[in-house]
């Protein structure tokens, strides 16, 4: 029982961070109908960015470095948008899949050449919290807290600010937003930037407690897909809840079954949701 609770807490805390990554994926899809297959490598780049900005590199405190990663992620996302997304936006879905997949391959290719695929480790520790059955490293707690904070900030931005509402307007009706004087291309670039930023930041948070390589993104990209389907494609709030569900599963399953069963159960769930609840568990978003 103690082990169960400890694993559950562990999983839930991770779930917030997974949810944050998935929010990036689902935001981009919700706004421009593009499934960003470069999502995984961007997560991995976030890991490397915090690594090289942080103690092993420039020596910034990892949580300060996180802010820099956010800014870099935003800029990098806007660049990806103009190079590989903007021109295929009105094309068939296959075009954007291929286009973002090539970005994925390029990042992995260049990343492998520069960083090799040897795992890196931040060796970052700020103690832990031990009481009752729980023994939680503070990095996990802070990571989850930052994820919640960023998610809340995104929500406030989208629903309370003029620029955020413009993103929703463009997502809802691009032609009409253009008619109202909203520069839709810049708004789409900003959305892609924010989506990329969320992925990079979640990668950076993960790097504060797990080792990683340029290939690590793939695993988290798959998790993001499962989460996004759980929460409803295009629904950022659903993504955070989906992240918690996935995190909880990852925590609990290994208590009862060998750990290799985790992905099996995750993807069975993925298929079941697609079959019976294509709009996600919470019904929102688009089918």
């Amino acid at each position: 029982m103690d082990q169960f609770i400890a694993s559950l807490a562990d999983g839930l805390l991770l779930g917030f961070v997974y949810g944050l990554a998935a929010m990036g994926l689902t935001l981009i899809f919700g706004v421009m109908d593009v499934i960003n297959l470069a999502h995984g490598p961007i997560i991995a780049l976030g890991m490397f960015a915090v690594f090289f900005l942080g103690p092993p590199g420039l020596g910034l405190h990892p949580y300060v470095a996180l802010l820099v990663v956010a800014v870099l992620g935003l800029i990098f996302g806007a660049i990806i948008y103009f190079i590989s997304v903007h021109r295929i936006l009105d094309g068939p879905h296959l075009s954007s899949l291929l286009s973002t997949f090539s970005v994925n391959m390029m990042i992995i290719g260049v990343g492998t050449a520069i960083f090799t695929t040897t795992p890196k480790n931040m060796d970052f520790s700020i103690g832990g919290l031990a009481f009752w059955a729980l023994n939680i490293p503070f990095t996990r707690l802070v990571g989850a807290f930052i994820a919640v904070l960023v998610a809340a900030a995104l929500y406030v931005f989208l629903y309370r600010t003029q620029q955020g509402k413009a993103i929703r307007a463009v997502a809802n009706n691009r032609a009409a937003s253009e008619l109202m004087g909203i520069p839709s291309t810049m708004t789409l670039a900003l959305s892609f930037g924010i989506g990329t930023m969320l992925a990079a930041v979640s990668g950076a948070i993960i790097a504060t407690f797990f080792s990683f390589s340029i290939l690590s993104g793939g695993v988290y990209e798959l998790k993001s897909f499962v989460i996004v389907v759980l929460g409803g494609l295009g629904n950022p709030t659903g993504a955070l809840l989906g992240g918690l569900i996935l995190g909880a599963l990852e925590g609990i399953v290994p208590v009862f079954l060998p750990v290799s069963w985790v992905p099996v159960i995750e993807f069975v769930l993925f298929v079941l949701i697609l079959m019976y609840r294509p709009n996600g568990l919470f019904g929102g978003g688009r089918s």
Partner: protein
Amino acid sequence: MTTVLEVNNVSSGYGEVQILWDTSVKLEKGKLTSLVGANGVGKTTLMRTIMGLLKPTKGTVSFHGQDVTRMSAHAKAAHGLILVPEGRQLFTEMTVYENLEMGAFTKRAKENFAANLDRVYEMFPRLKERLDQKSGTMSGGEQQMLAVARGLMAQPDILMIDELSLGLAPFLVLDLFEILKRLKDDGLTMLLVEQNVQMALAVSDYAYVLADGKVELEGPSRELAQNEHVRAAYLGI
């Protein structure tokens, strides 16, 4: 009289399909101009070309004497050229109030937000009761009101309305035409595309009759309403 918008010999269309052939139209300051004609003659195409959603293959569009042919739609909106598009094109997932806010996105519109909001509430009291409702869940008439209201929030210098009355109940059509008259009395320059030719000629100062992508006839609306050809072809008299 001052000409605020001038369309000179414009040809335009969708890809290979040319719809407009050498069309010229002028809008005078403070006047309500209407664009009438059968379905598919290019009225919407003309508006979309003026707005910059379609790029003309030939000809120019000038706004306050400045050539704006290649200017993007959002930049034109920022200068006060506003289109209320056919089929309303509301932000259906957003609330009524958010739609009005998005109407006032540009700098010139933001500066007059409070005054425009009051005016819109006063013209469309029904919208004021539904500020928190998702716009997509309202009735067709209410959506059309919101589309016009959103256009007014943009602080238009020229307001173009594509198919104001399409699919609306007759009493709503009358209400909306009353609003048009008021806006005209307030001195707003407007271009109206309308399938109800009789109403359009009754409310407007000047009219263009489009046929096969060309201006077939033009003149003061009162005169066109008496024209034999117009009466036979469009008014069914």
